């Protein structure tokens, strides 16, 4: 078989996504905005096909080592595609209400997903960059999706400027590593950097820059500043999307770069990752306390969660990496569930409300919604036996096994502080005087999504731990 043909076969998920996005774009252009709903479901179908392809396809390097399909990428791709599909579906009622029911949404989502799949399969700095840029460009557009609304435009512009800066930093880092390490290929770099080249100032400098560029995407402190503003300004479904799939993709990319390309420089990046993890956990926990907007609150929550996940990376062992993967899977469900709940927050006229105080006394008007959100909040706070506790436990255990006691201790402290604002939401819903009631639910699908997320996070979700951890372990082993 011709090598190119074999490579294309290995990259089947990306191929499906590419053709799918072009196809839907054509359909949309000809059929107009009316086609939003069918296009969305087509998009979900394509995600499903790509997911099956990713899960069952051959696992090998392709395109002369630029691209790799392995257990790690398969795990992340399935996760990313599922999250993206949910992000597409949950947006439907919102887009129809907001009269911006433009067909570009699922198309952009698909392009971003394509970028993410490239990212997690990147085996070369250049593939990495292309994937990241594809994701970023689609994201900037999505953030500014309500282009007539100042907040949305502002969010898009901010994201773009800071993203461009991060991109520049990343590229600069890549060029430094290439200059001093002699390659952009991960496997080559891995071998080279275990030698004397790994000690060179240029490579260390390049490593720092690459890490900074990637940490911007996972919104780790101090590269997180865009997150609250963009989450608040962007349309809620877009914020939901940002908080989920791209985080998993960028985290996967970061893990692969650290463990594979810079495997010989673990000592160097472990310090940076540890400090960033600590800063993210603490700032995420502390920053959320003063917030009155639920989307900003969830933005800080995502910052804190990324910090917790980074603990697993800092450990750098199979247990640590599988902890990260397990963490991201559970986090995805919790954050998407929380955002679908936020989408339910509409006043009597159907206009979205985002203040925390509007949740007051929700338990009296919308019992089911309040209960589901309470479960999600308890789970985010990491209270056993809800599912959110177990991945935290996994990464803390990994940190302790590698003698990173400080990280684990600070992680526990940050969890305690974080519990405060999660529980405050529960308190508002159950104990405060009722605020004006929300409009009735407008989508059975979204109600179902909330139910599934809450059920998954409830103690019942413990049934999912064994398969999830097993899969995460298989995925993590692919890197070592």
């Amino acid at each position: 078989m011709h090598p190119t043909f074999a490579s294309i076969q290995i990259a089947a998920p990306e191929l499906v996504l590419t053709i799918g996005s072009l196809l839907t774009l054509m359909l949309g252009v000809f059929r107009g905005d009316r086609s939003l709903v069918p296009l969305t479901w087509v998009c979900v179908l394509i995600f499903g096909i790509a997911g099956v392809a990713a899960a069952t396809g051959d696992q090998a390097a392709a395109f002369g080592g630029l691209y790799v399909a392995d257990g790690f990428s398969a795990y992340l791709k399935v996760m990313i595609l599922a999250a993206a599909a949910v992000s597409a579906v949950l947006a439907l009622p919102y887009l129809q209400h907001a009269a911006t029911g433009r067909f570009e949404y699922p198309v952009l989502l698909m392009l971003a997903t394509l970028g993410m799949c490239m990212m997690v399969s990147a085996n070369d700095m250049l593939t990495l960059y292309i994937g990241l840029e594809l994701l970023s460009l689609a994201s900037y557009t999505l953030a500014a999706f309500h282009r007539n609304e100042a907040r949305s435009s502002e969010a898009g512009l901010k994201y773009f400027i800071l993203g461009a800066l991060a991109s520049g930093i990343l590229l600069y880092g890549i060029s430094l590593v290439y200059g001093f390490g002699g390659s952009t290929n991960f496997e080559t770099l891995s071998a080279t950097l275990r030698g004397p080249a790994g000690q060179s100032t240029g490579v260390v400098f390049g490593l720092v820059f690459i890490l900074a560029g990637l940490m911007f995407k996972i919104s780790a402190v101090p590269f997180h500043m865009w997150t609250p503003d963009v989450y608040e300004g962007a349309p809620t479904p877009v914020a939901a999307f940002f908080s989920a799939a791209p985080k998993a993709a960028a985290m996967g990319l970061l893990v692969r770069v650290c463990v594979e390309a810079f495997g010989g420089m673990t000592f160097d990046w472990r310090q940076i990752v540890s400090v960033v993890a600590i800063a993210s956990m603490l700032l995420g926990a502390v920053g959320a306390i003063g917030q009155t907007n639920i989307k900003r609150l969830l933005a800080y929550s995502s910052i804190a969660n990324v910090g917790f996940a980074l603990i697993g990376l800092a450990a750098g062992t199979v247990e640590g990496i599988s902890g990260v993967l397990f963490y991201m899977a559970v986090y995805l469900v919790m954050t998407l569930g929380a955002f679908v709940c936020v989408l339910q927050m509409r006043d009597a006229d159907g206009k979205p409300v985002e203040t925390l105080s509007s949740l007051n006394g929700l338990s009296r008007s919308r019992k089911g919604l309040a209960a589901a959100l309470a479960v999600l909040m308890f789970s985010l706070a990491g209270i056993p036996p809800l599912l959110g506790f177990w991945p935290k436990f996994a990464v803390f255990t990994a940190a302790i096994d590698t003698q990173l006691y400080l990280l684990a201790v600070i992680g526990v402290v940050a969890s305690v502080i974080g519990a405060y604002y999660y529980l405050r939401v529960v308190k508002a819903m159950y104990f405060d005087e009722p605020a004006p009631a929300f409009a009735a639910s407008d989508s059975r699908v979204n109600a179902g999504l909330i139910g599934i997320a809450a059920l998954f996070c409830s103690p019942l979700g413990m049934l999912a731990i064994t398969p999830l951890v097993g899969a995460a372990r298989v995925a993590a082993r692919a890197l070592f």
Partner: protein
Amino acid sequence: MIQLLVFLPLAAALIAGLGNRLIGNLPAKLVTTAALFVSAALSWTIFLDIGLAHGAGYSVRVLEWIVSGDMRVDWAFRVDTLTAVMLVVITSVSALVHLYSWGYMDEDPDQPRFFAYLSLFTFAMLMLVTADNLVQMFFGWEGVGLASYLLIGFWYKKPSANAAAIKAFVVNRVGDFGFSLGIFATFVVFGTVQLTPILAGSAAMAGATFNFLGAQFDVMTTLCLLLFVGAMGKSAQLGLHTWLPDAMEGPTPVSALIHAATMVTAGVFMVVRLSPMFEAAPDALTVVTYVGAATALFAATVACVQTDIKRVIAYSTCSQLGYMFFAAGSGAFGAAMFHLFTHAFFKALLFLGAGAVIHSMHHEQDMRFYGGLRKSIPITFAAMTIGTLSLTGFFFTSGYYSKDGILEAAFANGSEASMVAFFVGALVALLTSFYSWRLVFLTFFGEARWGASEHVQHALHHDHGHDTEDTTDSDHAHHASAPAGTGGYHPHESPWTMLAPLVVLSIGALAAGFVFHEAFIGAEGGTVFWNGSAVFREPLAEAMHHVPAWVVWTPGAVMLIGFAIAYWAYMASPTLPARFVAGNRGLYAFLTHKWFFDELYNAIFVKPAFAFGRLFWRGDGRVIDRFGADGAAALVSASSGAAKRFQSGAVYAYALVMLIGLAAAATWVLRPALLG
């Protein structure tokens, strides 16, 4: 049989307590009362079998409880004569009190709770007396303390009842602390908490000493004194007695059961149960004698000036417990138990009688508002008179046999402490006679004085206020036609549920002494009766029969003198008490303030404890909270504010933060290169 006897009250308590409103008043009352009567019947068969038919004692192991190293504690019942006596007292009085409470608590909204507590108490008390090891005894000891707390505070809406309940609990803690130290020390010395080996090994330990801070102490004396502190708390001996009078805030049946007949005698029981230990510690016995005598005197003097009918009886109880202790201290453990036994009957009778008086007077307890009640409530009057005769030791009543026995034993013992106790005991017998007859005369004789009572007034207006439209007129009519001082109120005799227990107890108060005195304290009968379950000094019992004639006649004589004084002061010349008080202001104040014990404790313990608490409270707030919990919270909210300020919304600021972070990270990792 013994298991059934002990656990029936627990089962009944659980049914009534957990069922509560669900099952309603009548089933709760039926279950608990029936259970207690069954237990009482079983107790009497055990008593006849083991005590009177001289059957062998036995021990029944129920469950393993604690096994830890050398420590082995089982749930086990030890049944011997001493236990049998206590079983009879506890279950009989408890059953009668249950029945009595049908009438007394008839209007209370919380009856199932009350009966559940009563049964729970009975269970705990039975655990205490059947214990075959010190730990199980402590379990029962704490259990009765808990039940006592719950029952004193039964009317929890009354602040005074709550305060009394807490006071009882706290004061008992002091005693229990001593008791637990005693148990620990006993375990250290004997290596076991089982009673049988401890009691068997006590004699061998006599005279042994241990070194503490350079001084030598007698082992057995130390152990016994620690244990005795526990007994003092539970039995309200001088120093730890302050809770008992206040405990009268509880419903009267509770006072009769717990604070007269059973729980307060647990201390006496414990000393007798552990009598072989005390026998090995003569110094401890001396202390017991002096404490008992002092308590008897103190409480009797205070009882003379009380005006609350229940408090008079409460102090009387305290005083009689003193008798029991100095009997035990004089080595007459049988006499102590005998007085415990007879006292349970006549004191429960007096309390229940007082309850009947209170019941018919609409909860008026002040004797100054009684008077002339003998015609309105003749059965109660008769019962109270029998109780008083027995308490004062009138010839051939129960109290006569037991009290004379104690005084003769104290004299026959001949030690200095016992001689002091004998004379104090004789004086107390005079005072007892005086205050008891004072109670009877104030309550049942003279003119009716209840017209001025608020309780009675309240009852009157409540009863008649809505009968007629013109209330004022009808009241005037009443006042005009009613005898002076009654305010138009006519006391009624109590229902049969209350009177029946009075009759039964009256029989006990009259006959128990005559029937059982040979067995309990007789020189020949005692040895076979006690059958080794408690120390019985046969020579002492023999010596009691050979005391001089004046010793034998002293109790009877002082009893008559006390009666004469009471008659003179409250019947013949009713102005005498007022004149006496006017002439002896200081003495009167000393007595009405109960020898200033409460004031003293307030100044020595309560206020410093409060000050101490405040110190820690404030200190906690200023140091631990400020730098601990509050400090951490303030830090978090301050950082939250700082984080918010950084989040300005300006893109250049965000970019700056990113670049600073980048520069910091780069500097950090390059530090080896930069520093060489």
